């Protein structure tokens, strides 16, 4: 069942790599990697490189290039370094890396700094093991001199280097000065997994449990900076609508409201605090231009999807694209047909922390402070708005209260919104954009609406003989920097290449992708959230049907696996 997972990873990767290319097109003659580094501030890493810092007390701090939004990257990445260094795990700390694609890029996504596709541990594995092993070698070499013992006779445990023969030992703290002067080894050898003492044990615990159990963990929503303004945006009530005119008379009378102005995505209300911004927005009157808006509701759209899927003839405007074609059976099989159809609603990601961002633009400042899932993309989109080089955009990474894909958006929608507002405010004055829960639920970028229609003809043995399967949904990748050339794979991942279809002789798989003005985005396992559900549920239904129709019992265990 690994194939769909690989599909997800590869489509996200393709998107990110090309997104950099799209932004990089602004800078003629630059490769994406060069483009991303132009104007980047020089980072001073210290003796142990960009991923490891060691304090005078010998405690090890690991620099996490990925976001921590619940998945546990803090613990996982810290453990890799601690394992290789044989550092005292209890004293290992972890901090977030700044945005710097050249140093902190994701090695599975073409060097774009970002978190997705379950890649944080996998792409960091060799990188952090080598960094940890190199740091350990530096301490061992320093200890060899200090303890007057051959390096080969030294062992390391809990940040202490020991020489068993002489009984002498030295701590990382004692060795720090001399170890820091040693040239890092050109190549270092990570441990054999058989020698792991930390990874794979239950000693690996969350590094953020204390902060998150005491209310001290810092999320974007918690940022308060001197002179900071808080903004809310009145968004159109229909997707695709634009502000036509607005009356801010009452909004400006709300105590605490500082300014009201239009931005591309709506009308911004800027205030001294969150409650004033909310009151101000409620007092604002906006007239929307709905000429290009999606005015149909979910029920109407679903009806369109159902009719298209059920129609024998092509419905006008509906283009069927094959995702699996194995010629229809001749002569037609005569077994019973099981029909099923499924509806899947638009789904909001609904993380506990609604979308938000803090931006400081102007007066020599160009900084974002927030939970950024793909800092490189957010740098690119910010740079496009303010007219800067992407690497000049500083990003201070914070915890995010969930994401489920929502904070990885090729349009950086809420980030761009915050940047537009902060640019208008100007002078580098900090602006915190706050989306309310209602903004978050109605703000789009949903898992797309989908309808599936299946007709499965069973053979005499009760197994599927001909699998007819139509998927009607919306392309996630269309409108991205990498629109799919053929069929958007994210629409049918989990159905196409399903192990259940491997041994089915005849498969007619078609998909119709409908253009809507409703913004859609990847949501957790992306297409598999509806496609894999349909496969599992349909096989279960066939199993029951087959039991009733035929003495031959179709069981899941009889279905060939992909392995």
């Amino acid at each position, binding site marked *: 069942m690994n194939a769909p997972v690989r599909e997800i990873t590869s489509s996200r990767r393709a998107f990110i790599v090309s997104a950099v290319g799209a932004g990089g097109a602004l800078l003629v003659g630059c490769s994406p990697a060069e483009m991303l580094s132009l104007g980047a501030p020089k980072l001073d890493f210290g003796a142990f490189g960009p991923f490891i810092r060691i304090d005078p007390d010998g405690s090890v701090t690991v620099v996490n290039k990925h976001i921590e939004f*619940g998945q546990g990257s803090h613990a996982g990445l810290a453990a890799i370094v601690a394992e290789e260094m044989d550092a005292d795990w209890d004293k290992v700390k972890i901090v977030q890396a700044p945005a710097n694609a050249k140093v902190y890029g994701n090695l599975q996504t073409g060097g774009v700094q970002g978190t997705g596709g379950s890649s944080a541990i996998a792409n960091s594995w060799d990188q952090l093991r080598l960094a940890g092993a190199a740091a350990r070698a530096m301490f061992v070499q320093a200890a060899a001199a200090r303890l007057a013992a051959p390096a080969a006779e030294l062992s390391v445990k809990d940040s202490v280097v020991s020489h068993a023969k002489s009984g002498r030992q030295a701590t990382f703290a004692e060795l720090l000065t001399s170890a820091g002067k040693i040239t890092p080894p050109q190549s270092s050898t990570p441990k054999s997994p058989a020698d792991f003492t930390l990874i794979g044990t239950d000693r690996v615990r969350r590094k953020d449990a204390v902060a*998150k*159990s005491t209310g001290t963990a810092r999320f974007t929503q918690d940022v308060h900076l001197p002179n900071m303004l808080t903004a809310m945006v009145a968004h159109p009530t229909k997707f695709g609508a634009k502000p036509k005119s607005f009356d801010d008379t009452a909004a400006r009378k709300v105590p605490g409201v500082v300014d009201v102005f239009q931005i591309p995505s709506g009308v911004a209300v800027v205030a001294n605090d969150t409650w004033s911004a909310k009151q101000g927005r409620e007092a604002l009157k906006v007239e929307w231009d709905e000429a290009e808006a999606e005015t149909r509701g979910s029920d109407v759209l679903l009806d369109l999807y159902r009719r298209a899927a059920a129609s024998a003839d092509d419905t006008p405007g509906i283009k069927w694209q094959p995702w699996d074609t194995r010629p229809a059976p001749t002569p037609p099989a005569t077994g019973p047909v099981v029909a099923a159809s499924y509806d899947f609603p638009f789904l909001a990601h609904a993380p*506990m922390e609604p979308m938000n961002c803090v931006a400081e633009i102007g007066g020599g400042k160009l900084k974002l402070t927030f939970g950024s899932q793909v800092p490189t993309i957010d740098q690119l989109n910010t740079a496009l708005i303010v007219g800067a080089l992407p690497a000049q955009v500083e990003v201070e990474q914070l*915890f995010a209260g969930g994401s489920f894909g929502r904070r990885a958006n090729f349009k950086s929608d809420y980030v761009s919104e915050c940047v537009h507002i902060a640019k208008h405010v100007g002078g580098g004055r900090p602006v915190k954009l706050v989306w309310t*829960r209602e903004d978050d639920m109605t703000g789009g970028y949903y898992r797309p609406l989908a309808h599936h229609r299946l007709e499965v003809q069973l053979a005499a043995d009760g197994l599927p003989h001909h699998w007819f399967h139509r998927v009607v949904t919306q392309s996630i990748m269309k409108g991205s920097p990498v629109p799919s050339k053929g069929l958007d794979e994210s629409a049918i991942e989990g159905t196409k290449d399903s192990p259940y279809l491997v041994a089915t002789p005849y498969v007619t798989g078609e998909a119709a992708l409908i253009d809507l003005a409703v913004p859609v985005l990847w949501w957790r396992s992306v297409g598999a959230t509806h496609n894999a559900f349909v496969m599992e549920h349909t096989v279960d239904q066939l199993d029951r049907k087959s039991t009733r129709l035929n003495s031959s019992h179709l069981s899941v265990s009889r279905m060939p696996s992909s392995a």
Partner: protein
Amino acid sequence: MATTLNINGKDVVVVAAPDTPLLWVLRDDLLMTGTKYGCGIAQCGACTVHLNGQAMRSCQAPIGSLAGVKITTIEGLGGAHPVQAAWIKRDVPQCGYCQSGQIMSAVALLAKTPKPSDDDIDQAMSGNICRCGAYQRIRAAIKDAAGVVTA
């Protein structure tokens, strides 16, 4: 307008309209950001605090109604509270955004029901949503803490 609030045992004078929800006074005026904003309409529980010992949603408590009320926030638990210790021991938080509210609801439950059954826990905690789905660990940590609290 100046209002005196008793927060974590101390009287604090705040200047805000009486209809301002306690949530925003805590977060924006007093910079006590442990109490979280998740929905603003009492549907998620992230903003849970104690009002005279009762778990309440601070987004629905206008400060004008809180004269003489003892307010306790996550900061007021001190960090070494048995429920917090149980949370840390079990690695309960994932993204962590809901956990201040979860902990405040759990503390209020145990104050009233020192040895809660699963049903008691479900009932007391049903207003606190965790999008990461940490419910199993939340229940286990409450049971851990129950052993400590009643000692």
